[in-house]
């Protein structure tokens, strides 16, 4: 085995491979920072360039791009409140408030540290536990997925702000928005009203951009000192300290583990991992009430969950030959173009190549750290630009970002309408985060619910069929009971205070 590892490292240790992975990460960070350009698009665009490369070089370049885009997405989420992907949307919840408080550099730093730690742990899990995790992931059927999604949704209570009812109402609206399009099973139209543009459903990216970026731009018109007002810059040069990192470390490690487990399950992706990690960090944090208002731990947890997925999505790909998402499907294509077939046989026939890829993945974490540090120096200067130049520029990015996802101007209209809805929500105190969570998790919820019921012939007993569903449903019940108890206590306190009020 040691001999195989040595041969693998020798295969990897060429300047072409190092340049490929470094170039891939840098390209990924840049592309990820552009709204609308997600990992799938970036990897798909780079695929043709790898045709003439050595298999290891090509695959390492693509994985570098994949990892880079995941981190790059956090930059636009933190700095301009424009998440390019659903996974990065969770980072905006605390990242942008931190940027508005003049702590953009700190938020970007902690996002980078969390990303690197999560990426490293994810790679390590891939190398050490691929077989075990793949086996566990295969035990996830629709009922288990459903139980997991239900548990992930308990975070809605945590991000509802002052009013739980407003949060639930916003989530219900998000669910309704997620049902637009063709029915998942029958292909019959739902809430499309004969518009062919709506048959594919509401695209994630235009809705995300509209919901988060446009309300902030429009809200500028309500501020009086347009010319002089800008993001507080007094603390912009102060990055995250070691104490910050140490404080966030438990959430980072927890988020990484969540990312690894969810990443190994085909079809889940980064968004649920980011939300679940965020939810767990909030539940266990001593500064729980600060979440959503600019809490560093929130950024760290979200990014750890998000990036923990990266290496782990390669587990089912390499060990079983099953792509977990669009990006790994493109990577599967890259393997096949080079005459390689990922799966159990690959570990016997091309073990040297596997070890070479593992070595490259470990290096990619170091490259990500260096590229991220350089990017932060450049990107954090964005906060120096006056509001009356930065917000119109962000609007242009929104127009392009919404358009390029599907090459459709209808998506620009969706973005504008989502922006107006987001603005109304901002002004009426309806929180946007529950809307977003329901919109992202809604299709997963419905799809797995209906698959499960189809499997069982309508018998609800399928949702308690095994230890995994029991585990997640028990966690859900515990969380709901805890939320209910806390809400009741708050309610009683209010009533007592009202009763004691003189007069």
């Amino acid at each position, binding site marked *: 085995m040691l001999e195989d590892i040595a041969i693998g490292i020798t295969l990897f240790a060429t300047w072409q491979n190092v340049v490929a992975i470094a170039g891939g990460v840098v390209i990924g960070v840049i*592309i990820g920072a552009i709204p609308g*350009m997600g990992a799938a698009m970036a990897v798909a*665009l780079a695929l043709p360039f790898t045709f003439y490369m050595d298999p290891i070089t090509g695959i390492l370049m693509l994985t570098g791009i994949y990892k880079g885009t995941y981190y790059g997405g956090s930059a636009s989420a933190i700095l301009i409140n424009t998440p390019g992907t659903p996974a990065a949307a969770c980072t905006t919840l605390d990242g942008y408030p931190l940027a508005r408080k003049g702590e953009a550099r700190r938020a970007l730093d902690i996002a980078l540290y969390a990303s690197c730690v999560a990426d490293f742990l994810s790679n390590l899990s891939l190398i050490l536990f691929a077989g075990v995790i793949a086996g566990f992931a295969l035990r996830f059927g629709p009922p288990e997925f459903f139980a997991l999604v239900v548990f992930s949704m308990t975070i809605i209570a945590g991000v509802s*702000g*002052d*009013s*739980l*009812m*407003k949060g*639930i*109402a916003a989530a*219900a*609206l998000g*669910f*309704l928005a997620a049902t637009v399009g063709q*029915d998942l099973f029958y292909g*019959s*139209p*739902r*809430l499309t009203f004969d518009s062919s543009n709506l048959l594919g459903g509401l695209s994630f990216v235009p809705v995300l951009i509209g919901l988060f970026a446009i309300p902030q*731009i*429009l809200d500028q*018109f*309500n501020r009086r000192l*347009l*010319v002089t007002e800008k993001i507080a810059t007094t603390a912009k040069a102060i990055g995250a300290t070691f104490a910050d990192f140490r404080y966030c470390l438990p959430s980072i490690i927890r988020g990484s583990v969540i990312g690894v487990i969810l990443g190994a399950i085909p079809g889940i992706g980064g968004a649920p991992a980011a939300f679940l990690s965020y939810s767990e960090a909030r539940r266990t944090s001593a500064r729980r009430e600060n979440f959503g208002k600019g809490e560093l731990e929130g950024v760290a947890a979200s990014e750890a969950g998000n990036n923990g997925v990266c290496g782990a999505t390669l587990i089912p790909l390499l060990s079983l030959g099953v792509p977990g998402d669009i990006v790994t499907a493109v990577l599967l294509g890259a393997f096949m173009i080079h005459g390689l077939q990922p799966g159990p046989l690959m570990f016997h026939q091309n073990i040297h190549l596997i070890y070479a890829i593992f070595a490259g993945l470990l290096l990619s974490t170091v490259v990500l750290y260096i590229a991220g540090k350089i990017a932060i120096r450049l990107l954090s200067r964005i906060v120096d630009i006056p*509001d*009356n*130049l930065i*917000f*119109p*520029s962000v*609007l*242009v990015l929104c*127009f*392009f970002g919404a*358009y*390029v996802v599907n*090459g459709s*101007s209808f998506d*620009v*209209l969706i973005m*504008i309408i989502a922006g107006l809805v987001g603005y*109304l929500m901002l*002004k*009426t*105190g*309806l929180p946007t985060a529950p809307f977003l969570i*329901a919109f992202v998790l809604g299709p997963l919820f*419905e799809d797995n*619910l*209906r698959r499960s019921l*189809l499997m069982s*012939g*309508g018998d609800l007993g399928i949702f308690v069929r095994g230890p995994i569903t029991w585990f997640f449903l028990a966690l859900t019940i515990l969380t709901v009971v805890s939320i209910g108890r806390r809400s*009741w206590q*708050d309610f009683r306190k*209010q*009533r007592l205070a009202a*009763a004691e009020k003189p007069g």
Partner: protein
Amino acid sequence: MKSTMSNSGPGPEGRMSGNESRSDRVFRRNLIIGMTLVFLGALFLLIIIPIGIKVPGHLPKAATSPAMWPQAAPPQAAAALLLAAGLILTAFVLTDRYLKGPTPGARPEPLIGNWRLVAGVLIMFVCWGLIPILGLPAVSALALAGFGYLMGTSRPWLLGVLAVVLPAVLYAFFTWAANVPVPLGLFLE
């Protein structure tokens, strides 16, 4: 469970005269939000979903129907949830008012701050409408210039340069680097 808006609360202004009317406005605003949610929930449940969701005939199991009612959740349950949340919110707003009376110092946020906001929204819609005619780069340049002007830029020349350079750079990136076609409208020639 709080049912008042986050911007309400006692403060120095709370002792000033005229607070009653501000508090009344907050109360009215929250009441309107609650009632609007009830209305929206009912609208979806009774009109939009029955009209907008086509249920194919001869389904093998009701559990797999696109309408999913009553066996499982979305989308009717989402509408029912909206209705319920609106009802509870309205109830809380009313009971809060009954028990606590007006909240001192409460101030509702203006929905439409000024004419600039309306103009900004109009610019976005007009720009969207102009995409097939002028193309995305030109429309983006117009939007950037319009928003920059409305936000009261002190450096119009810089705004002008930015309005040309930024859409051009994005166009070049998406067209040549990312290979994503961007519409040019009349400028296609």
